């Protein structure tokens, strides 16, 4: 998802998971699993067609407490309707209220949610889920496979919300009995949508048309998850109570309260005062101030997000971008000129890692790393040599190179005013470009204006600075951004390459993670070398929590909370 878009403050990215996949494929596909190496690592279900638990259930059930866990955040949900929400905050609340078929554990590997086990068919085109026997909706009705069928088929039929993208190949859902759902696709599914789509109660939702769902506010959500929503005081707090009808091990916390702060400094004071127990997102300067405070742990974890420089490579007739940027040499020279370590140190105050590929390094199993030969970074001499060789030289002695037809290498650069790290990065980028004879004119805009400038049918801009984090735990999302078909959609630089598109379709249906990784590596390398995106850094996920109120926080790549795992909420215990 668009990082730091107005409504999306960011998280929930690509979680990795070759390892998870290995386990999953091994456990859940017949022995004829496409890759022996994948199947070899985990053995539980060698029998064809057998199903198996995804991972061990939580250990020893601790005693539920009467304590309230309080989280401080700086933005609140837009709506509690999972099919219309665009905010990370709503997703965070909703993942405690609703179950998906599968979830992620604290190791970011798949674990059971509503489905206690599942199995892939041998062709990878259908997945059979066995539901938890005692799952109930919070209004007392039983959860059945009809609910799964309704949810998947309705999302697919009416193309509802962001989940529809995972069901484009859906044929339908069979329900042989109330506890079994068989989800059938027209193609093998590399990404299991059970990991991301919340299951909704058919008896509440099925009476609504697509348009009615579009305006449904879902103020009193009925879910099957570990918590139920009890109050949303708009502009202030969201309160959840532990559900008495949850099928799994109940949470230790009796209540979870999210407290909205309109100011980051006051939010940090709130943590220091003990008004809240954990902060979901801490800006670097505030984090530095909290680091070392009494009874506070400031945590820095890898994230699944990046910030990048995007270059307009549109070939559309209406594009008003500078045509010189269609020359890959100039883009590569800009990439060579950029010192990413300097960006991390100066713009991010050290809270991140230099970036390269569009799959963040935090996703260790999917990230592709350029070799020393392929690396484009902090090498102004190489940039100059490239430009010289391509005939871009300074012909009139003004310090700016010109093309053979006398066109100066001068481009417009835009960044979001309120995202100070981007503005600083843009300034450093401008200086780096100047040093190799390319002039950049920096303008800052508000986010919505930048968005409508960049995403324009006839793009009238040259270079921007922005960021991304993917909405789902799979490389598919980020790799899908530069597709030709996403021009007019997510594709913000108008990149289009048929070869890349073909590789994309191939990886999406390659269930074997090793074979899939070979394809995704090739795609990352191609996109890196085509240099329409200059990934600047992978920023750290900064959070902070009190050590004297709750114990048992597990630091996870992507964050202790605001991640795809909800298990920290279930496991932390009060100290008093």
């Amino acid at each position: 998802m668009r990082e730091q878009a107005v409504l999306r403050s960011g998280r929930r990215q690509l979680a990795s998971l070759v390892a998870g996949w290995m386990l999953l494929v091994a456990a859940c596909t017949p022995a004829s699993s496409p890759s022996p190496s994948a199947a070899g690592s985990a053995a539980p279900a060698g029998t064809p067609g057998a199903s198996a638990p995804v991972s061990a259930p939580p250990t020893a059930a601790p005693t539920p407490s009467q304590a309230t866990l309080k989280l401080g955040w700086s933005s609140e949900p837009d709506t509690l309707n999972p099919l219309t929400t665009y905010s990370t905050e709503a997703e965070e609340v909703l993942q405690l209220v609703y179950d998906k078929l599968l979830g992620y554990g604290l190791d970011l590997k798949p674990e059971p949610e509503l489905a206690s086990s599942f199995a892939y068919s041998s062709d990878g085109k259908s997945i059979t889920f066995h539901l938890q026997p005692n799952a109930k909706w919070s209004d007392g009705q039983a959860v059945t496979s009809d609910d799964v069928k309704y949810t998947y088929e309705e999302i697919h039929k009416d193309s509802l919300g962001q989940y529809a993208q995972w069901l484009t190949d859906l044929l339908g859902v069979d329900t042989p009995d109330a506890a079994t759902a068989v989800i059938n696709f027209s193609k093998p599914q590399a990404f299991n949508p059970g990991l991301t789509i919340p299951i909704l109660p058919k008896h509440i939702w099925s009476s609504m048309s697509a348009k009615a769902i579009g305006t449904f506010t879902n103020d009193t959500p009925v879910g099957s998850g570990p918590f139920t929503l009890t109050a949303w005081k708009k502009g202030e707090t969201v309160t959840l109570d532990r559900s008495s009808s949850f099928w799994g091990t109940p949470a230790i916390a009796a209540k979870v309260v999210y407290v909205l702060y309109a100011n980051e400094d006051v939010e940090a004071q709130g943590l220091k005062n003990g008004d809240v127990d954990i902060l979901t997102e801490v800006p670097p300067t505030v984090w530095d101030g909290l680091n070392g405070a009494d009874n506070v742990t400031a945590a820095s974890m890898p994230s699944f997000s990046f910030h990048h420089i995007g270059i307009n490579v549109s070939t559309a007739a209406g594009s008003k971008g500078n045509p010189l940027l269609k020359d890959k040499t100039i883009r590569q020279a800009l990439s060579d000129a950029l010192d990413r370590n300097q960006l991390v140190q100066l713009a991010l105050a050290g809270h991140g890692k230099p970036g390269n590929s569009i799959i963040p390094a935090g996703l260790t199993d999917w990230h592709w790393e350029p070799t020393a030969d392929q690396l484009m970074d902090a090498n102004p001499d190489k940039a100059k040599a490239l430009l010289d060789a391509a005939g871009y030289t300074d012909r009139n002695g003004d310090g700016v190179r010109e093309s053979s037809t006398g066109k100066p290498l001068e481009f417009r650069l835009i960044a979001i005013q309120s995202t100070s790290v981007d503005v600083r990065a843009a300034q450093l980028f401008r200086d780096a470009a100047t040093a190799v004879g390319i002039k950049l004119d920096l303008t800052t805009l508000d986010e919505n204006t930048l968005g409508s400038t960049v995403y324009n049918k006839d793009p009238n801009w040259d270079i921007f600075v922005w960021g991304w984090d993917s909405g789902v735990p799979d490389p598919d999302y980020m790799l899908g951004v530069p597709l030709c078909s996403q021009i007019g959609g997510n594709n913000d630089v108008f990149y289009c390459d048929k070869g890349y598109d073909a590789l994309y379709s191939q990886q999406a249906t390659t269930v074997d993670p090793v074979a899939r990784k070979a394809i995704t590596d090739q795609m990352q390398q191609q996109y890196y070398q085509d240099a329409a995106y200059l990934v600047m850094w992978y920023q750290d996920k900064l959070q902070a929590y009190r050590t004297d109120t709750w114990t048992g926080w597990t630091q996870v790549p992507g964050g202790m909370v605001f991640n795809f795992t909800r298990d920290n909420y279930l496991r932390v215990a009060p100290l008093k």
Partner: protein
Amino acid sequence: MFRLGYLARKLAILALTLLAVATFNFILFRVLPGNPIQLQARAGNLSPEAIQRLREIYGLDQPLISQYLIYLRDVFTGQFGTSITFQRPVADILAERMLNTLILLAAATVFVVVLGIGLGIVAAARRGSRLDNSVVVGALVFWSLPTFWTGLILIFVFGVFLHALPVSGTSTPGSSFTSPVASLVDLARHLVLPTITLALVDIGQFVLITRSSLVDVLTEDYILTAKAKGLSRRQVVWRHGVRNALLPVVTTTALYVGLTIGGAIQVETVFSWPGMGRLMYDAVLRRDYPILEATFFIFALVVIAANLVSDLLYQVLDPRVRET
């Protein structure tokens, strides 16, 4: 007092102004770059079909003129449409936010107006005294304080060091109150710091305006006459001075009430107070047209109404400006 004709004329002008404001708001937000559906759609990777449904739900698929007519209907029925961000009726959202803003500003306005005018009168009556000097200096100092900074300082002193008062929101998160009284006490505690911040910063203008207006009046000949008649100092100041000095004060009060209803953005931000100011600010960033149109309209309505009230008050207070 005043004639019905005068009132009718004033009301007609008010109605025309409102129509103009409503129209201006509609145009203003649509010429701003940016598009409310756009960022939502990008964020969610929506299908074209889903984007089209969003446009239909918010009426953005209609021609501009129909959008305008629907908008006018919504405005004058007080419905204001559906918020694009929150996907709920704007009227509901406004009701919640307006209540919070009114609570905060009622408390602050009482302080500011009563104390400000009172101090101004005292200072003017003792013009040149040490008391007068301290009041004027104090008023200037407080008026010069940045609201944001003052709020943060109060937070650090009363919230962080003394742990005496809550520093954010309107109630203690996660608490459940046994009686309405306990909940009111909790609200009152949350009100203290934001109210003091607003009062400290805004009181100066009332002190200074009241003082200077009264100082002018107290040099008039009729004050000398009053004194010569042997009236007590109290009678001179209050009966002959203050009433005549009130006109600019009434104007300032009307403007103050009008401006504050738009929300005290800075105080609301520092103290995380969920009022109109923050709602409007967020709506600008998100291009939430229905909320923007509604808040700007209400803002205009209150300013215009406050001015009408002050015009009418003039008529009551001062026979010299009475019109027919």
